[in-house]
């Protein structure tokens, strides 16, 4: 735990963001920062592996196609290193095989980049309440109800 001598946000969810597209990273920070504590916004997998253990994030939001390393590999190594944070993948890949692979790997969330604005905050809150979230399910149910 971070010792802050009483000067800290006490009840906030701590997020670590990783995306190699700096514009998306900037948009995510603007969108999430008012409600959550963004502990880091990183653009490569190596930095995530280096920084995550010391920052105690509750949630890590990971792009699948990071420049230096696949997001799946980053998730695997985080798990191996014993980092307890939950992982949400945020990606352009909407293929169901990717979604399955992500959950098989131990991820608890999967959000399509095409659905950031309707899904991401829902996903974070659902997961922090102990649930799972997949844009694939939401997209499927909204299609069938339409």
């Amino acid at each position: 735990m971070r010792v802050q001598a009483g000067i800290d946000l006490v009840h906030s969810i701590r997020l670590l963001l990783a995306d190699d597209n700096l514009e998306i990273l900037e948009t995510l920070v603007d969108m999430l920062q008012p409600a959550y504590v963004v502990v880091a916004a990183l653009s490569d997998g190596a930095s995530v592996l280096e920084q995550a253990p010391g920052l105690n994030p509750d949630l890590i939001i990971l792009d699948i196609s990071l420049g230096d390393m696949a997001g799946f590999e980053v998730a695997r190594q985080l798990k191996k290193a014993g980092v307890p944070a939950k992982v949400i993948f945020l990606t352009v890949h909407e293929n169901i095989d990717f979604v399955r692979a992500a959950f098989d790997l131990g991820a608890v969330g999967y959000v399509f980049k095409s659905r950031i604005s309707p899904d991401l905050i829902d996903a974070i809150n659902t997961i922090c309440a102990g649930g799972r979230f997949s844009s694939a399910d939401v997209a499927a149910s909204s299609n069938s109800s339409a």
Partner: protein
Amino acid sequence: MNRKPAARLIIADDHRLLADACKNLLEPEFEVIAVVTDGRSLLKTALALKPDLIILDIAMPRLNGLDAGEQIRLKLPATKLLFLTMNSAAEIAAEAFRRGASGYVLKHSAAEDLLTAIRKVVHGESYLSPLIARETVTFLLNQGKAHTDERRITKRQTEILQLLAEGMSMKEVAGVLELKPGTVAFHKYRMMETLGVRTNAELLEYAIKRQMISA
């Protein structure tokens, strides 16, 4: 066992004399690796040198300390931020901690206070000047909302606003931020829409109110 190497610091203050005096005060104990005088050079220097700690002012040209500090913290989360400022408002101190500061010291504090603050921050503790009410800062910090309505405009827009308010043309702003002039114009008009202002003068007034530049 070897002694731990001295912490590596960057000092950022647009008052050169003060920055140099600060460097002289700290150098027996810490390694001052750079002194910069505006927020944008701070950003560049910090990302290149990855210091252990940055001592930074809030009111700085080209990019204010709060915005520069926040951008650095997101990219270099291991680097600690210690604000050294004239601004004694609890709201501003709370905002600094909200953006990830580890320390907040006033410029009219004793030199010994700054040294104490740095030693604490280097050891992973936080420090708030005793001249500011700690309870108020903690209260504000945990209210959950930023003290201003600044969150309504994006970080990119805030950066552009400061440069425009300092008198740069949209083309010059585009040069500094490495954007296309059209992109700067787009952000400027989006921001005017968001803030509900129609003229450049009103936009400037907003920047002054936000203490991005001095009146």
